[in-house]
């Protein structure tokens, strides 16, 4: 350990220059103790190839910026230690999301669209009263809301999801989990019918095929199976209750 030479095979493509086809570029680095993919990529950029594009922000597995496909699996690069990997490391950008260049993908736009589609904010008719005490809430409820709210929108669940890979309109585990967060929140006054409008379809809760790559690849270890099935059960109950009116032509 410590003196392995690591070989990185990194996906290169710049959508600005479509005439250069995508290719894998190799870089060699000496491994140092405690090396993460964050450390390695910065070293490559600073010493070998200053044009290499990738995203890091917090480098502490809090912000969700640096998800990429490392040796086949989507995960956060900042918390991936090279010592846990073989000497040959392949790095690909996350699938599903629009490519910015090399390893950088545009998760921001995807998540923003998802949040707008699901109206991911607290829907309330109450006005905020600055002179009043806060509304009370059970601490247990607060913690239950926090559980799905911990999602950092890194996109690993979406990248690992077979459905999301073939259906552009699928909300993905992150989207359904986001809806679960508001369903659990007593401050959100949306009715089951209103939630049904948002996720009661193949693009939402019913599109999930239960492959659980989301649950297995979530870097925040959010119990996505629990959140997804919670929404699915609620939506089925609501769907069976619905009455549809036919439009006469």
């Amino acid at each position, binding site marked *: 350990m410590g003196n392995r030479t690591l070989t990185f095979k990194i996906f290169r493509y710049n959508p600005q220059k479509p005439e250069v086809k995508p290719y894998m570029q190799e870089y060699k680095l000496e491994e140092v103790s405690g090396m993460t993919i964050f450390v390695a990529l910065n070293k490559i950029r600073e010493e070998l190839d200053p044009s290499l594009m990738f995203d890091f922000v917090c480098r502490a597995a809090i912000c969700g910026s640096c998800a990429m*496909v490392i040796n*086949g*699996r989507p995960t956060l690069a900042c918390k991936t230690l090279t010592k846990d990997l073989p000497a040959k490391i392949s790095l690909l950008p996350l*699938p599903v999301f629009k490519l910015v260049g090399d390893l950088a993908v545009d998760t921001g736009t995807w998540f923003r669209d998802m949040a707008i589609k699901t109206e991911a904010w607290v829907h309330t008719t109450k006005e905020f009263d600055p002179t009043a005490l806060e509304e009370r809430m059970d601490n247990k409820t607060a913690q239950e809301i926090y559980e799905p709210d911990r999602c950092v929108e890194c996109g690993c669940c979406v990248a*690992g999801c*077979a459905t999301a*890979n*073939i259906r552009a309109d699928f909300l993905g585990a992150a989207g359904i989990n986001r809806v679960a967060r508001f369903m659990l929140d007593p401050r959100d006054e949306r009715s089951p019918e209103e939630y*049904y*409008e948002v996720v*009661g*379809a*193949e693009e939402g809760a*019913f599109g*999930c*095929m*239960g*492959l*659980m*790559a989301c*649950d*297995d*690849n979530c870097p925040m270890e959010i119990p996505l*199976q*629990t959140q*997804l*099935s*919670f929404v*699915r*059960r609620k*939506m*089925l109950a*609501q*769907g*069976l209750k*619905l009455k*549809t009116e036919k*439009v006469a*032509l």
Partner: protein
Amino acid sequence: MLSQRILTKNPKADAYLDAIEMATGICLVSFLWAHMLFVSTIILGPEVFNGLSEFFDIYLLSYIGVPAIAIIGLIHFVVAGRRIPTNIRDQKIIWQHAKQLRHTDTWTWIFQAITGMAILVLAALHIWAISTGWPIRAESAAERMQAFWWFYLILLALGEYHASIGLYRVFVKWGWFPRKPIFFVLKVVTVIIVALGLGAMWVFLQLGGAA
């Protein structure tokens, strides 16, 4: 939104399809397991097996049951099959995705689609075989087994695999149990059912050999 989309919008449809997929799946698994238990009564002797078979005939259960299961099976095929990508590009994406991800549950789903289609064909043949040789008795079954043991070996393996993984996925999707323990339980059940099936086949082969 496009006008034809607005006019054809049926918000219930997706919920119902999902519910039907689950309900028919559970029916078929229950049927398969019950079927295997009944078949394996041959281990207790041809008398028990024939008695049970006659009992089903007397109360006309077989005459209702076989077509009913065939229809449920067809519905399940159509409904569950809606998830299988039909264009080449999506097919390629799925295979590439699975190969890259090296994720058990993703592979089992691909096998689920493949076994599902295989079962459709094999089960149809099996139904055709039993209905042309009606009624089902130990002797006729033994003859079939003698001639087509390899066919039944394949059907047993595929059917049980598809049933167990399917049931596992139902539990996963609806979240009634945590998935790791349920996977283990289903593995145990599968081993029992396959053992019973193999046992029954062995007895049939002995019977057929004796005949």
